[in-house]
C-alpha cells in the first residue's frame, strides 16, 4: 500500500477531528518515561489495569512520556468531563482509592492531586516550577502516547512536513531555519540553518542526516525525555532536514543505555514507514528517505560528532580532525548534517509557525527556548524548558524553588563536564550561548547541576575531571596524558598535598590542554578546573595553605570530633565505626582516636544527637 500526500492529509485531518471530539472522554494516563518507570510506573499501570478491569469500567488507560516534574513521579493523569487532573507520587496501593473516589464517585482525591492541567505549553501555571516555563519542544511530552503515531498526528504532528513537501523549496526551508536563528542545542551553538546550507551546497550525490542522541553528560536527560516522550518530533525534524539538504538516508545514534528511547524510536520508525513517511517513495513524492538506528556502546566521546561518525562506520569512536567538517566530508566521506535531538525537535514548529514565532523568544543571538535538566541541590529537580536569556537566578530560584533544605547557594555547573562552574555573583547572567562562553562555561547540552555550601569546588573539579579523563579516547597527547596529570594534581589537593605554586602549574597545564587538544572533549575538559580556579580560588588556597576543606567534603582534611557536651554515650557511633577508632564507656562522652579514624563518616550518620562534627 502506498500512501500519497493527499490520503495522508485526509487521514491526519480525521485523527485531529477525532481528538477534538473525544477530548473529554474519561481516560487514565500514566507517566511512563524512564523517570516514571524508575519510580514504579509499571506497578501503577498494572494496578490500574486490574482495578479498571475488576470494576468493569470502560475507561481508556494510556501511557505518556515525562512531563518534566520527575521528582513527583509516578504521575497519573485522570481525564474527566472537567478536564485533566494530575496525581503525583502515585503508588500501586493508592490506585484503588483514586479509581474509587475520582472515577466512580466523581470525587477527586485532593490531597494527592498535583493540579489541573492548563495548557501543554504551561501545564500547571500555579506551580512555581512551571510558571516561568515555556514548553515548545516539550509541548507534547507528557501528553501524547509516544508509541502512537496516530496520537502524534492528532496533535498536529507531521503538519510541518506536509507543509514543506507541499509548498516549500529546500532553499526556502533553509532560509526559514536561518531566519529563525536556531542554533545547535548540542553544546557549541552552531547556527543550524548555516550547517544545513553548507551540507546542501557540498558537492555529492549521496548525503546523510545524522541525529546525535548520544547524550552522555552526567546528570543530563533532556534528549532522552524527548525521545521517550515525543519521538516523532525528532523524526519529523530529520525528515525535513533530509529533504532540505538532499539526503536520502539518516542515522540516529542513540546510546544503548537508553533502551526505552531506542524501543520507542524503533516503534516510531516502523510506524512512519507504515504510513509512507519513510521508504522508497515518501508520501508519493518519488523521493527516498530512510532512517536507521545505531546504538552506541557507551563511550562519552561518541557524542563528539566526528567520533560519532567513526562509530557509525564501525570504527572505534575516535574523533577526527576538523576540517574537513562533516558538512563537507562526514559519514563514509559524504556530506553529512549532524544535529542533536533537541535541535531536530525544534524544527517542525519553526516551519509550522514561522521563524518569527520562534525568534519571538530569546535574546539577540540566542533564540527560542532551551531545555535543561535541573539537578543537584535544588528544591525541585526535573526537566525544564525556559526561554533563552532567562537568568540563572530565575531558573534556580523561581523554577527550581531554590536550594534544598534552605542551604546556601554556592554555584552551578552548567554544560556538563565540558562546561564551567559559575558562582553566586553570576546568578544574574542571562542564559544564552555567548554570555556563558564569555563567563568560561558553555551551554552544553543543557545539564544544570546546582551546588550548595556543602559542595567542595576542588572535589567537584576532581569529579568532572575524573569523568573526562576516563572518557578520553586517548588519541591525542594533551587530553590523554594532560587530564590524567590534572586529575592527579586535584586528587593531591583534595588530600591536602601540594605546594601553593601547584595551582599555577595546574592552570597552565589546563590551558595547554585546552589549546592543543584535538576535539571538543579535550578542549573543554579543563573548563571545570579553570572556572573553579577562577571563581573559587580561595577554596583551593584553603586546601593548599591551611589544609582545610571549607565544604567539609575532602576526607583527608577532615577531623572528626565528638562534642563532649552533646554526647550522651549511647554507643551508636562506636558500634558502626569500622576501625574501632571510637572509645568510651556507656553513658559517658565518647572520643575518636584521630590516628585510627579513616574519616568514613559512619559515626556522623549514626549519632542520634548530632554530637559528632567534622
Amino acid at each position, binding site marked *: 500500500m502506498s500512501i500519497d500526500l493527499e490520503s495522508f492529509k485526509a487521514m491526519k485531518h480525521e485523527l485531529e477531528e477525532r481528538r477534538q471530539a473525544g477530548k473529554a472522554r474519561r481516560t487514565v494516563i500514566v507517566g511512563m518515561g524512564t523517570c516514571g518507570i524508575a519510580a514504579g510506573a509499571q506497578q501503577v499501570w498494572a494496578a490500574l489495569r486490574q482495578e479498571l478491569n475488576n470494576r468493569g469500567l470502560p475507561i481508556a488507560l494510556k501511557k505518556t512520556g515525562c512531563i518534566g516534574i520527575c521528582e513527583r513521579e509516578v504521575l497519573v493523569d485522570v481525564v474527566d468531563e472537567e478536564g485533566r487532573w494530575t496525581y503525583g507520587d502515585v503508588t500501586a496501593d493508592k490506585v484503588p482509592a483514586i479509581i474509587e473516589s475520582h472515577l466512580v464517585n466523581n470525587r477527586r482525591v485532593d490531597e494527592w492531586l498535583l493540579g489541573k492541567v492548563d495548557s501543554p505549553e504551561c501545564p500547571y501555571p500555579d506551580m512555581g516550577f512551571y510558571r516561568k516555563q515555556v514548553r515548545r519542544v516539550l509541548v507534547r511530552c507528557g501528553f501524547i502516547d509516544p508509541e502512537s503515531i496516530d496520537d502524534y498526528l492528532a496533535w498536529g504532528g507531521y503538519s510541518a512536513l506536509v507543509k514543506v513537501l507541499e509548498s516549500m523549496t529546500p532553499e526556502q526551508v533553509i532560509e526559514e531555519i536561518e531566519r529563525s536563528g536556531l542554533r545547535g542545542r548540542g553544546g557549541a551553538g552552531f547556527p543550524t540553518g548555516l550547517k544545513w546550507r553548507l551540507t546542501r551546497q557540498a558537492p555529492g550525490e549521496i548525503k546523510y542526516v545524522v541525529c546525535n542522541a548520544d547524550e552522555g553528560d552526567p546528570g543530563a536527560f533532556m534528549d532522552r525525555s524527548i525521545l521517550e516522550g515525543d519521538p516523532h518530533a525528532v523524526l519529523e525534524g530529520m525528515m525535513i532536514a533530509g529533504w532540505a539538504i538532499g539526503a536520502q538516508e539518516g542515522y540516529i545514534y542513540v546510546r544503548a543505555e537508553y533502551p526505552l528511547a531506542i524501543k520507542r524510536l524503533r516503534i516510531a520508525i516502523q510506524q512512519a514507514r507504515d504510513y509512507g513517511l519513510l521508504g522508497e517513495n515518501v508520501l508519493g513524492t518519488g523521493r527516498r528517505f530512510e532512517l536507521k538506528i545505531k546504538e552506541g556502546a557507551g563511550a562519552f566521546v561518541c557524542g563528539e560528532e566526528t567520533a560519532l561518525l567513526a562509530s557509525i562506520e564501525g570504527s572505534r569512536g575516535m574523533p577526527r580532525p576538523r576540517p574537513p567538517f562533516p558538512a563537507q566530508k562526514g559519514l563514509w566521506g559524504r556530506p553529512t548534517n549532524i544535529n542533536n535531538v533537541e535541535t531536530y525537535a525544534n524544527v517542525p514548529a519553526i516551519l509550522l509557525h514561522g521563524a518569527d514565532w520562534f525568534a519571538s523568544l530569546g535574546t539577540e543571538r540566542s533564540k527560542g527556548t532551551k531545555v535543561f535538566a535541573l539537578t543537584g541541590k535544588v528544591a525541585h529537580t526535573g526537566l525544564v524548558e525556559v526561554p533563552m536569556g532567562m537568568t540563572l537566578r530565575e531558573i534556580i530560584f523561581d523554577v527550581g524553588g531554590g536550594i534544598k533544605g534552605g542551604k546556601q547557594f554556592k554555584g552551578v555547573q552548567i554544560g556538563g563536564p565540558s562546561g564551567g562552574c559559575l558562582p553566586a555573583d553570576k546568578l544574574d547572567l542571562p542564559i544564552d550561548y555567548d554570555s556563558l562562553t564569555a563567563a568560561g562555561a558553555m551551554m552544553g547540552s543543557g545539564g544544570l547541576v546546582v551546588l550548595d555550601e556543602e559542595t567542595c569546588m576542588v572535589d567537584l573539579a576532581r569529579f568532572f575531571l575524573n569523568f573526562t579523563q576516563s*572518557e578520553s579516547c586517548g588519541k591525542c597527547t594533551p587530553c590523554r596524558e594532560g587530564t590524567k596529570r590534572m586529575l592527579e594534581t586535584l586528587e593531591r589537593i583534595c588530600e591536602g598535598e601540594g605546594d601553593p605554586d601547584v595551582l599555577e602549574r595546574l592552570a597552565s597545564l589546563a590551558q595547554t590542554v585546552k589549546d*592543543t587538544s584535538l576535539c571538543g572533549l579535550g578542549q573543554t575538559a579543563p573548563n571545570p578546573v579553570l572556572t573553579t580556579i577562577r571563581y573559587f580560588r580561595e577554596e583551593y588556597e584553603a586546601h593548599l595553605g591551611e589544609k582545610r576543606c571549607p565544604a567539609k567534603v575532602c576526607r583527608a582534611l577532615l577531623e572528626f570530633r565528638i562534642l563532649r557536651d552533646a554526647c550522651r554515650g549511647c554507643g551508636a557511633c562506636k558500634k558502626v565505626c569500622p576501625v574501632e577508632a571510637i572509645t568510651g564507656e556507656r553513658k559517658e562522652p565518647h572520643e575518636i582516636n584521630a590516628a585510627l579514624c579513616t574519616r568514613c563518616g559512619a559515626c556522623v550518620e549514626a549519632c542520634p544527637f548530632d554530637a559528632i562534627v567534622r
Partner: protein
Amino acid sequence: MKEITIEIDGRRVTVPEGVTVFEAALKLGIEIPHLCYHPSLPFLGACRLCVVEIEGARGLPASCVTPVAAGMVVRTNTERVREARRTILDLLLANHPLDCLTCEKAGECRLQHYAYEYGVASSTWQGERKRLEPDESNPFFVRDQEKCILCGRCVRMCQDVQGRHAIDYVHRGFAVRVSTPYDVSLTETSCVFCGNCVTVCPVGALTPKMSRGRGRTWEYTKVRTVCPYCGVGCNVYLHVKDGRVIGASAAEGPAHEGLLCVKGHFGYEFIHRPDRLRVPLIRQGKSFREASWEEALSLVAGRLLETRKRYGASAVAALASAKCTNEENYLLQKVFRAVLGTNNVDHCARLCHASTVVGLAAAFGSGAMTNSIREIAEAELLLVTGSNTTETHPVIGTRIIRAKRAGARLIVADPRRIALAEEADLFLQLLPGSNVALFNGLAHVIVKEKLYDAQFIAERTEGFAELVEALEPYTPEYVEGITGVPAELIVRAARMYATARRAMILYSMGITQHTSGTDNVLAIANLAMLCGHVGREGTGVNPLRGQNNVQGACDLGALPNVLPGYQRVDDAEVRRKFEECWGAPVPTQPGLTVVEMMEAAARGQLRALYIMGENPMLSDPDINHVREALEKVEFLVVQDIFMTETACLADVVLPGACFAEKDGTFTNTERRVQRVHKAVDPPGEALPDWVILCRLAQKMGYPMSYDHPREILEEIRRLTPIYGGISWERLGTDGLQWPCRDADDPGTPYLHKDRFARGKGKFHPVKYRPPAELADEEYPLLLTTGRLLYQFHTGSMSRRSQGLEAMAPEPYIEINPRTAEVLGIGDGQLVEVASRRGSITLRARLTERVARQVVFVPFHYAEAAANVLTNSALDPRAKIPELKVCAVRVRPLGANGSDGGGS
C-alpha cells in the same frame, strides 16, 4: 587545482589547496616537530607536537591536519608554541620509561630527539605510569607498551596501508593502549608480521628481536640493497656491525614504497648460519672432503672439457640461478656458450614463467610485466588470477588490497579461496587447469555483447576474426561446465572487466604451470587486447615473477634459445655481435630446457651438469625422477650457499656468496634493474659466484676477468639493446626499468604504449585442453601446489631463519572438510598423499579454502615434498611442467604414521 599563498614564519609560500600547514612548511625547509605524522600514513593529528600559532585561530592547531587557507599567517616557533611542545613532551615523558641507556632505539628515537631539542630532561609531573610487561609472544619483534606513545603510526600502518586490522586502540582514557582483539598474541590475529609497524614506530615500543642487544644506530652501518626473496624487489638496509648483518630495515624505493613483508624484514638469519658452505668440497665415496679452490676448479674445468671432448658439447649443461645477480647469470651463460660451446643453459624460470615468456612474446613481442607495480593504484579494476598474491608477493598483495579499499574493483579467479578472494567483488573459483575455458568464456561474453574496444582492435591488433570464430563455442553455460564457475558470474566478470576504463590483469603460476600454460597466457593476452587494456597506465597483462632475479636471469640469456636481451641464438646477426665481443663462436642450435635436461640425463645423454644456486631436488616436478636423473649424471657440480638436497648428490660443491656478500644488479618483476650492494664478506673461503665463474673460465683456458660487476654490466649494456642505457652509475637508488636503450632513456614504466613490441598485437585463438592428468577412480582428487607467506621456494633460506620457520614449521595438505569427512580424516591428522609418481606423509588441515575435489600442498618442505607427487608433463611450446595439477589420492594414517584408515 587552486593555489594558495600563506605566510609561515614571515616567509611566503604557495601550495595547492588541500595541502596542510605542515607540508607547506616543509616546502620552505621548515620541519615542524612531529611524532604521529608520517608521510606514508593518513594524517591523524594525535601527538599535537606539531602545534603552531595561526593568527585568528582558536588555541594552537596541529599543523599536520590543518589545511592551508588563503592569507593564513602561521608561526611555528614562538615561545607559546615552544612552551606547549615542552608541555606535551613533559606529559609524554611522565608516562615513558627513561631507560635510554639500554633502549634499542636510542639514537634514532624521535622522543629522545625532541626531548633533547626542547631540553626536557625528565617529567615535572609525577604520578601513575602504565606498567605493562613487554610482549615477546611473536618470533619477530617485541612490543614494549610502556614505551608506546600512542602516536598511532603502527595502527594506521596495519589498517590503512597493510589492510590487516590486527591491532587497534583499546580501552579509554589513561588506560588506552594499542592491542590486539582481546589481547591475544599477534600470532593469533590477522597479523602477517610484515614489520612495517616496526619501521614506522618512532620510539622503542616496537623493536626487532633479531637485532636485540647487538648494536644501536651509531654502531652499525646501513647498506642499501635489494631483498633476496620474491620478485617485488623491495629495497632494504642491512645493518652491519663487525662484519655481521645484525638487522634489517626498509629503505624507500619506487617498487615497494618503503614497505616490506615478513621475509624481507626478518628473514636474514640464513646469512650467518653455521651450516653455510665455507670451502669447496669434493665427493669421496658417500661423503665429501674439503678441497682448495685450485683443486676443485681444476677438477671441474678438467671434467667439463673432457666431457665435451668425449661426448660433444650437447652432453654438458648448466642451470643458472634466479637468485644470483644479472652479472653472474650473464657470465654463466657466457662460459657455457663461449667456452663449452653449448646452449644447454636454462634455469628455474622454466618452472615458473616459461609460458609467459613464450606467450607474451607471441602476443605482444615481449615476455614481461607490461606495467609497473605502482600502477596498481591507477587501475579501476584488478583481475588477479592464479596468484595468491598476499602470500607470494606480499607487498604487491597489500597494494591490491589498498587499491580495492580505495575504490578499485577486484575480480579474483583461483581454485582456492585465497585471502584476496575475501576482498574481491567477484570470486571465480575455477577448477585447476580450466583457465583457457574461463578466459575464452569472458572473451566470448565481451564479443557477444560487443563490449570490446573496436578502435584498439582495428588499429593495434591482428587476428581478431579468427579469435571471434574460435570463441564461438565458449558460452557461459559451456564454460560453467568445464570450470565450475557459475555462468552468471562469468557474464558479470566479463562486463566488469570490459567496461572499466583501466583494467589490469595480474597473474602468476596458477596460469603458467600447466601443460596449457602458454595457451593460458595467450587467452589472457587476447582478453586484454580485446578491451584495449594494454599499453596504457593502470592496465596491462602482468605476470608476477617469483624469484628476486628470475626476470634478470631470463633477460641475461639464461635460456637455451636466446642470448641476453631475448636475442635469438638462431639469428646469425646476433651471434656475430656476441662472437665479436666474446672472441668465441656461439652455438646455433637452441639447447635443452630444465625438464628436458633431466630427461636427457636419465637417458644418459647428458653427462655433466653445472648447477648454480638451484635446487631441482625440491623445485622440479616428479622428484623421484629428478633424483634418478641427477644420480645418472656422470659429473655434477653444485655451486650454492648451503648443502641443499641437490648439492648432496654433487661430485663437486662450490661455496658461493649470498646476496649480502656481493655487488651486482637484480631485475625485479616490473623490469626494474636495481643495484645490490655488498654488506659483509662471504663466510670462510666462499667466493662471489661471478668470481668463481671467472676463475673457472680461466681454468678452462678462456681469459675472463673483471674487477667489479659494474664492468660486467658494461659488457651487458653493449650487447643487450634493452639494457643499452643501463650503467652502474645511472642506476642510483631507484634503478631503471627496461627497455632502456641509451644513456638518455629514462626507462619504460609500461610497455606497448603506441605500438606493440612486435608491431601489432596478435590474437591467438586457443582451445581448452584438459590437464595432462585428471582425477579418476584410483586418484580421485586434484592436487594443486603453491607457496606460503613464511617460506620461500625450497626453503634453503627461509627454513634457516628461525622466525619464519617458527611460523610455518610443518608441511600440510589443505582438504575441504566435507571431503575429509568422506575420507575419515580429521583436522591435524597424518595422511598419506599419493600420485602415480610417489607418495608423501603429512598432516591434514581442513579448510573451506579449497573446493571439495581439490587439495593443496605447499612445496617448500623436503620432508614431504609436494614435487614427489607432481607431474612432469610439459607444455609443448614453453616446456613448463604441469606443477599445478595432478591426480592424487589421500588416505588417513594413525597418529604415528601407521595405517589408520580403512575401518
